[in-house]
C-alpha cells in the first residue's frame, strides 16, 4: 500500500434525495470497476442491514474501495463513502462529507430536485466539495432530463449541461460517471510526513476486533503499533491493524497515509471513545489542532421502552447495551413506571432512529416492547433559578414551581408542487408553524420555509405531509434552538387513576384536541370490565375530556357439550393469554396495545 500516488486517489460520496437511486448507482460503480461481478452482488451491496434493504434507506455510512482503470490508461483508487439518507442522521452525513474531496449529485430525471437534494448539496458545498451532477432514471417514460438540467443550474447554480444521463438500474452510461469521477473530483492533499491527523466518520463494534474506526487521513501516516489519541474524547490506544474496505470485508494493509480512507482497530471496547467527527492523532507526535466540525451528538427524541413481559427486563437491558456498542447516538437510562413497571427512558436522534432501534430490538433480540409516546427535551425554568432538561413528562415539577418552559424549534424546508401549497401551509399552521418564506423554484414548485416546534413533527408529520400533498412534498429540517412556549402536561386518568405512562407535554392550545382524541382511542382499546370505566384527560387536575367504557354485560359460551369442551377450553385459554398481556392499573386491565395506539392519533 505504501507509495501510492496521491494523485490517483479519488475520495467521494453520492448525495441524493431518498429514492433517486443513490445506492443503485453505488452498486453499478462497484460492479463496473470489477470489484464484484453482478452475480456476487446482492441488490445494493452497501445497504447491509436487513432493515436498510427493506426500507430502501441507508442508516449507517458504508464505505468501499475499488480500483478503476481509466481511459487514460492509469489505475485510480476510488473510495466511495456512502452516506446515511435521512435527516435524523444529518451530523453523520456532514462528517462523511468532510471525509470526501468531491460528491456526485444524483437527481431523478422525472422528479427533479427535492428538499433533501438541496439540503445535501448545500451540505456538500459547505464542506468545499466539488460536486458534479448525474441525471438518473432517464429510462423512465416520464423522464425530462432537459428540464432537470435547467433546474439544477437555476436552483443550485452548478454546471449541469454535460451531466451524464444514466440509468443506474439498467447500467446505462455508467462509464461516463466513472470518467467524470477521475476528471472532476480532485485528488486529496496532505503530506504523509506531517503529524497524524485523521477524521473519524463512522465506527462499528466487532466482537473479535473491538471497535473498528472508519477514518480519512488528512495528514500523516498510521500503521500497526502507532500510539493514537482521540482528541475530543481523550481516549488513547495502540493500533493493532489498519486496512481498507473491500466489498463487505476488511482488507488489512501495511499503513494508511495522507489522502487515504481506511480503518483502524486498536482493541477499543466502546464506540463512545471513537465519536464520529473526532480527530485521531499520534499520541507521541500530535498534530497542532483537531479537524474542525466536531460536535457531541445529542438525542432529540425520547421515549420510554418497556418489555411487554416484565421478566424480560434484563434481556432488554442487554440488548440496549449491545446496540449501543454500535450506535453512540442511542442513549438510555433505567426508569420505572407505575403502569408499565421497569424499563428504560431512551434517547434518539429522531423518530426514524427510534423506529429503527425499536424494530431491531424486536427482530434481532426477539423482544416484545411497549413504547410510550415520544417526546422532545423541554427546558423547565424554575423560580429558584434551576433549569431542568425534561425527557420524561412524569418528572415535570409542580406547576407552582415553574417560571416558564421552553421547547426546541427547527428550521424546516418543504418543497412542494404549487397546487398543494395551500394544504401544506394549512398543515404547518396546525402544527404551530411560523411562516418564514416561500420561493418558487420554477413555475410548478415552491420551497416553503417554516419554523416548527420539534414536538409537532415527531409524531406523524411525515405521514400528514405525504397524504396532504399526495406524495408531492419533501421535507428537511435542522435544529434552530429553544423558545419559550405555553406548555402543559396532559394527564390521562383511567377509572380516576392517573396512568403515568400516558402523560405527555403538549402546547396549551392543542391540549383539548389531543386529550379528546386520546380518550376516544383508549375507549376503543380498553376492554369492558365488570364495572363502568371513566377515561379522562386532565390538565393541572382539571378534566378537559371524558369517555366511558361501558360495563360488561355478557361474556359467555352459550353451548358447551361433549364435542365442544376442548375447543371452548382453547377459547378460554386464548382469553386468558390476552389478560396476561394486560397491564393492571388500579383495578383496570389495560392492553399493551392501548399504550401504543395513542401514538397515532391523526386520521386525516
Amino acid at each position, binding site marked *: 500500500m505504501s507509495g501510492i500516488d496521491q494523485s490517483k486517489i479519488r475520495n467521494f460520496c453520492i448525495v441524493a434525495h431518498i429514492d433517486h437511486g443513490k445506492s443503485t448507482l453505488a452498486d453499478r460503480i462497484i460492479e463496473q470497476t470489477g470489484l464484484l461481478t453482478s452475480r456476487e452482488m446482492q441488490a445494493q451491496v452497501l445497504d447491509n442491514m436487513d432493515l436498510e434493504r427493506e426500507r430502501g434507506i441507508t442508516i449507517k455510512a458504508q464505505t468501499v474501495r475499488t480500483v478503476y482503470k481509466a481511459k487514460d490508461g492509469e489505475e485510480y483508487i476510488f473510495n466511495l463513502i456512502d452516506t446515511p439518507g435521512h435527516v435524523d442522521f444529518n451530523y453523520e452525513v456532514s462528517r462523511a462529507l468532510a471525509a470526501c474531496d468531491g460528491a456526485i449529485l444524483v437527481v431523478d430525471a422525472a422528479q427533479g430536485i427535492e428538499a433533501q437534494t438541496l439540503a445535501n448539496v448545500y451540505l456538500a458545498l459547505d464542506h468545499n466539495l466539488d460536486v458534479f451532477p448525474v441525471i438518473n432514471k432517464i429510462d423512465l417514460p416520464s423522464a425530462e432530463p432537459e428540464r432537470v438540467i435547467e433546474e439544477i443550474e437555476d436552483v443550485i447554480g452548478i454546471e449541469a449541461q454535460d451531466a451524464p444521463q444514466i440509468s443506474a438500474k439498467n447500467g446505462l452510461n455508467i462509464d461516463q460517471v466513472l470518467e467524470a469521477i477521475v476528471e472532476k473530483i480532485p485528488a486529496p492533499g496532505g503530506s504523509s510526513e506531517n503529524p497524524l491527523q485523521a477524521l473519524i466518520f463512522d465506527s462499528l463494534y466487532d466482537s473479535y476486533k473491538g471497535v473498528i474506526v472508519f477514518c480519512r487521513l488528512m495528514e500523516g501516516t498510521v500503521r500497526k503499533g502507532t500510539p493514537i489519541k482521540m482528541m475530543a474524547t481523550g481516549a488513547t490506544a495502540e493500533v493493532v491493524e489498519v486496512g481498507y474496505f473491500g466489498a463487505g470485508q476488511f482488507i488489512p494493509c501495511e499503513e494508511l497515509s495522507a489522502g487515504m480512507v481506511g480503518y483502524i482497530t486498536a482493541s477499543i471496547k466502546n464506540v463512545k471513545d471513537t465519536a464520529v467527527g473526532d480527530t485521531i492523532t499520534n499520541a507521541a507526535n500530535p498534530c497542532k489542532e483537531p479537524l474542525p466540525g466536531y460536535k457531541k451528538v445529542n438525542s432529540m427524541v425520547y421515549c420510554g421502552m418497556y418489555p411487554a413481559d416484565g421478566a424480560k427486563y434484563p434481556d432488554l437491558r442487554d440488548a440496549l447495551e449491545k446496540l449501543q456498542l454500535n450506535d453512540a447516538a442511542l442513549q438510555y437510562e433505567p426508569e420505572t413506571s407505575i403502569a408499565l413497571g421497569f424499563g428504560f427512558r431512551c434517547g434518539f436522534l429522531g423518530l426514524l432512529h427510534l423506529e429503527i432501534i425499536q424494530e431491531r430490538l424486536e427482530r434481532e433480540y426477539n423482544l416484545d416492547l411497549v413504547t410510550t409516546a415520544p417526546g422532545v427535551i423541554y427546558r423547565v425554568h424554575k423560580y429558584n433559578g434551576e433549569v431542568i432538561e425534561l425527557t420524561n413528562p412524569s418528572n415535570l415539577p409542580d406547576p407552582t414551581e415553574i417560571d416558564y418552559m421552553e421547547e426546541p424549534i427547527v428550521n424546516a424546508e418543504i418543497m412542494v408542487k404549487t397546487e398543494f401549497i395551500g394544504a401544506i401551509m394549512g398543515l404547518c399552521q396546525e402544527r404551530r408553524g411560523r411562516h418564514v418564506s416561500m420561493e418558487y423554484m420554477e413555475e410548478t414548485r415552491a420551497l416553503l420555509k417554516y419554523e416548527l416546534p420539534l414536538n409537532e413533527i415527531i409524531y406523524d408529520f411525515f405521514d400528514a405531509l405525504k397524504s396532504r400533498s399526495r406524495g408531492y412534498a419533501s421535507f428537511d429540517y435542522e435544529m434552530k434552538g429553544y423558545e419559550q412556549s405555553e406548555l402543559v402536561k396532559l394527564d390521562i386518568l383511567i377509572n380516576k387513576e392517573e396512568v403515568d405512562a400516558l402523560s405527555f407535554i403538549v402546547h396549551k392550545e392543542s391540549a383539548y384536541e389531543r386529550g379528546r382524541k386520546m380518550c376516544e382511542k383508549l375507549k376503543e382499546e380498553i376492554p369492558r370490565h*365488570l364495572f363502568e370505566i371513566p377515561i379522562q384527560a386532565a390538565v393541572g387536575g382539571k378534566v378537559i375530556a371524558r369517555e366511558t367504557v361501558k360495563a360488561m*354485560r*355478557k361474556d*359467555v359460551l352459550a353451548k*358447551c357439550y*361433549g364435542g365442544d369442551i*376442548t375447543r371452548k*377450553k382453547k377459547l378460554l385459554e386464548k382469553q386468558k393469554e390476552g389478560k396476561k398481556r394486560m397491564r393492571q392499573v388500579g383495578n383496570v386491565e389495560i392492553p399493551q396495545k392501548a399504550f401504543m395506539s395513542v401514538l397515532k392519533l391523526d386520521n386525516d
Partner: protein
Amino acid sequence: MKKLSLYIHIPFCVRKCHYCDFLSAPPRENEKKEYVEALCGEIRREAAAFGEYSVDTIFFGGGTPSLLEQEELEKVMKALQDGFIIEETAEITMEANPGTVDRKKLEGYRRLGINRLSIGLQSANDEELKELGRIHGWETFLTTWKAVRECGFTNVNIDLMSALPGQTIESYTDTLKKILALEPEHISAYSLIIEEGTDFFDRFGPGKAEEDRLPSEEADRTMYALTGKLLQEAGYSRYEISNYSRPGRECRHNLGYWTGKEYLGLGLGASSLVGHTRFSRETNLETYLQAAMAGESTVVWQQDLSSRDQMEEFMFLGLRCTKGISAKEFRKRFSADISAVYGKQLHKLKSKGLITVDETGQIVLTSLGLDVSNQVFVEFLK
C-alpha cells in the same frame, strides 16, 4: 359397574343452516347407507373395550339424525345393543328437526327404545327461521309437535335462540309464550353466538355489512332476562347456563359432560372422554369411511389430561350448572383441598360478586357470574 354415556354422530342434514358450525352437510347418493355400515362396524369394534361399563345415556346428535331411515336406525341400535350393556332405564335422546319426522318414524323410534326427543325449533317466527336458513316454519313444527305427543313422547326438549338478526323483544316474547303453551319438559335457550367460519360471520360479524341488524346489547339483555323470568314463572328451573327443565327432566346425558362423566363418541368427528383421556375422530367423511370400513381406528387426536387439566375442567364445566360444584367432591376427586389450589381465585371472584360459597363448601355462580361466566372460568386456567 362403571357408567358410560354414548354419543352417536349423524353428520347429515337437509341443508346447512347459516349459523351452523357443526360437522354436517346434505348427504350424497348412497352416503347414508355407507355411513351407517361404517358406523355399525365402529360400534362393534369399539364396544369390546367397554365390557365393564353399563350405558345409562345415549344421544343421537348431528346434523339431523332424524334423517336416518327406520331400517338404518334399527341397524345402529342393533349394533349398540349387541356391543354394550344398556341399562333398562337408560335415557336415549334423538335430535329431530321439524318436518323431518312423521308419526310413522316417531313410532319407530319408540319401538327402538328412544325415550327423549330434542327438537331444533329455534324460533316461532317464520321470518327469523328463514333468516337462520332453517327448512321449517312454525306450522310445520306444530304438525311435528302434535305427532310427537300423540306418539307418547313425554320427555321432549325444544331449542330456542335469542339475539337473532331482525329479532325484536316482541317477536321473542311471542316465541316464548307459544312454546310455553305447549308445555315441553325441557327448553334449551341460546343467545346466538356468531361463530367464525359460518355464513353468519361474513354477514353479521364484527364490522360486517349487516352487523347492525343484530339486536342491540340492551335488547339482547332484555331477551335474556325475559327467558329466565317467563320460564321460571312457568315452572321451569335453570339448571345450566342455557338449559331449563321441569323438575326431574334435566338432560342426564348433557349433565354428564359437565360433571366429568366418561363418554364414548362414535361416528364422524365424535369426541370422547374415557378414563383421563380426551380423544376425537376423523372429521373428513371420506377419510372416515375408508378407515372405518377397513376396520381401522378413526381416532385422529388425543390428549391425556393431567391432574391440573382435570381440575380446570372440573371447575369450568361444573360451574356451568347452577347447582355448582362442591369442595367435598373436589377433595374426593383430586385428594386436594380446593382452597389450596384455587383459594386465591375463589376469593377474588367472590369479592367481585361473581360466585358465592356457602358453609358446606358449595360454590355457585351468581346471576352476574352466569352472565359473564367466561370471566369466572378463565381464572381457573393456567
